């Protein structure tokens, strides 16, 4: 690297520092604190100084890295090595990951907290896989995916609390309702593409949430729905003292009662649901309809010239993507036993889209890695309370700097003429 380059990157980092100062100065530097009767400003220039310094240093390192002809930072090396493993040995990687997921609840260090985080990550993986059909395969940027999650959750909650039907009947119904809403959204946006589609879907997500808040008679408004039935293990509830004539899980299997039983059951439930989503997506991608989705993403006009019906193709993508969102929603409702519109805000959609895009559009493994990375890191910093969102943003920036096309960006053909050469 030449001296000129170093000076250039140093100048650039100073400029970054200047922008950072302009941002952090007022936001972090001037802190309002209420003391007694008034509101006072407490300056904290030390923190600003540290933050700006970090920005300058970070920018300088990034500049140095991009000026090199060979990669030298640990991050990019690790990242490329990791992608190499996951791509070349995709099958082994998948089997190892699934095996790990299966034994995870019984590992010695696994406690209640780990299980909760794992369930959350799996929920996001499932949502990511569902949205991957719409965004990754069909190329329709849907910023309102949380609407289908909400429809699934509320359908489940309303059916289960009103009719008292079991989880296994309500689950497909909730999926059907969500798919129906997917088609409902699909029709008006058929002609839209890109930015316009994104805006309308974003609006759709908000419409659903606002309906949930205002339709008090049905949805109980902002108070939400309470007392959603918990799932039972094929008819055996997870209760310490079962009702008359009922046998609970721990009694049937002669176990000591523990709340972990239900958590572990929920964990396996979402694991199975997520794996079904994955299996289905991998299968359908290799079918004509899956190829038509991808062709539509590549070039809609060419699709029409080949006789592919774009309306049906788009609607199936919306419907199937929405259906899996609905399944995930039902799971969310039964796990929480309480849902309110607050759980279905735009930030949820944004997180799911971030997972799909950062994972590498269309890559199933990428969704898993991005979910673990984004949600896991955010959870690791839970002690920092509101600052943990910085970790979320930081994780996004890291991926964008080192893997701008997403963690796993390689697409494998759905069918090979000459077989696998490797």
């Amino acid at each position, binding site marked *: 690297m030449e001296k000129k380059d170093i000076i250039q990157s140093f100048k650039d980092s100073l400029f970054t520092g200047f922008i950072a100062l302009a941002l952090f100065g007022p936001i972090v530097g001037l802190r309002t604190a209420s003391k007694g009767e008034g509101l006072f400003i407490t300056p904290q220039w030390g923190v600003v100084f540290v933050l700006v310094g970090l920005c300058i240093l970070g920018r300088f390192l990034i500049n140095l890295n991009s000026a090199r002809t060979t990669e030298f930072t640990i991050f990019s090396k690790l990242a490329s090595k990791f992608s190499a493993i996951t791509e070349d040995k995709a099958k082994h990687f998948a089997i190892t990951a699934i095996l790990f997921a299966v034994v995870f609840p019984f590992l010695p260090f696994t406690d209640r907290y780990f299980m909760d985080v794992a369930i959350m990550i799996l929920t996001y993986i499932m949502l990511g896989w569902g949205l991957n059909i719409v965004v990754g395969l069909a190329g329709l940027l849907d910023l309102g995916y949380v609407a289908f999650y909400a429809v699934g959750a509320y359908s489940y909650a309303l059916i289960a609390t009103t009719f008292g039907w079991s989880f296994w009947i309500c689950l497909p119904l909730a999926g059907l309702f969500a798919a129906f809403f997917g088609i409902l959204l699909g029709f008006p946006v058929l002609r839209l593409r890109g930015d316009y589609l994104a805006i309308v879907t974003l609006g759709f997500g908000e419409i659903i949430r606002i309906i949930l808040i205002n339709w008090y008679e049905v949805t109980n408004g902002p108070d939400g729905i309470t007392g959603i039935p918990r799932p039972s293990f094929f008819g055996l509830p997870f209760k310490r003292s079962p009702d008359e004539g009922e046998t609970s899980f721990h009694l049937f299997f002669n176990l000591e009662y523990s709340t972990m039983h239900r958590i572990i059951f929920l964990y396996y439930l979402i694991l199975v649901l997520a794996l079904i989503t994955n299996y*289905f997506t991998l299968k359908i991608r290799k079918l004509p309809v899956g190829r038509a989705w991808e062709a539509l993403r590549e070039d809609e006009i060419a699709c029409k010239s080949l006789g592919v019906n774009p309306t049906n193709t788009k609607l199936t993508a919306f419907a199937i993507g929405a259906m899996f969102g609905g399944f995930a929603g039902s799971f969310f409702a039964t796990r929480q036993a309480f849902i309110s519109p607050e759980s279905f805000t735009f930030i949820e959609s944004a997180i799911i889209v971030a997972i799909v895009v950062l994972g590498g559009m269309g890559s199933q493994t990428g969704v898993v890695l991005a979910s673990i990375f984004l949600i896991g890191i955010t959870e690791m910093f839970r002690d920092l309370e509101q600052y943990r969102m910085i970790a979320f943003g930081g994780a996004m920036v890291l991926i964008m700097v080192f893997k701008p096309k997403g963690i796993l960006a390689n697409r494998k053909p759905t069918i090979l003429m000459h077989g696998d050469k490797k």
Partner: protein
Amino acid sequence: MSNLLSVENLTMKFGGLTAIDDLSFDAKNNQITSIIGPNGAGKTTVFNCLTGFYKPTNGQMFLHKEDSKISLRKYTDFKIAYVAKVARTFQNIRLFPAMSVLENLLVAQHNELMVASGYSLYGLLNLKTYRDKEQLAVDKAKYWLDIIGLTHRADDNAGDLPYGDQRKLEIVRAMCIEPRLLCLDEPAAGLNPKESAELNQLLKFIKTEKQTGILLIEHDMSVVMGISDHVVVLNYGKKIFQGTADQTKNSKEVIEAYLGVDE
């Protein structure tokens, strides 16, 4: 030679601009009909009307079958390719660049494969009936790839192919829908002489071996004069001449349209 396509009094207006003005011509089965003319003469607009991208202001377009004829006006959008079996290629290549060459050819057989996969049901169940049909589709793709000599690149991304190969791939992709009429919009644009010669070979093969009529827009006169059976010359949306390639070459009107009138 039976008539395949007859265009009658076709008119297309965009606001005050008349892009095509009362155009009538015929195209025959197993013949190559070229539409030529200076830039802005309305050639691509004719294609867009034929292939359902525009709805003509006036006029009729008929595709003849053995003893019946269907009106192309009735079909828009994807139905032109699906029902009427009119295929087209584009001036700026429109492949699916991130999909493999083979996948490109399978998307062209989407409708048959959709039925074969029981609208995805048989496919999800991995039934043998579907797998057999899929194999047939792959065989058909291989047949065409053998003809254009791209079989060895079947699993590569279409976007990674050299420009000339992409042109040829787009043509055989259109052939995979088994069209009755194939509309080619400047297939030789950007090709070198060797590639142009290969293109001529391919078009002659399609013309003689398949039950297909070809409609061709082209600026490259070596292609037009080498393979056209019939030439239609447009200028400012009007037909100024039609005849064989040799007649066209010597026509006074055509030379004037291209080079201007001696004052």
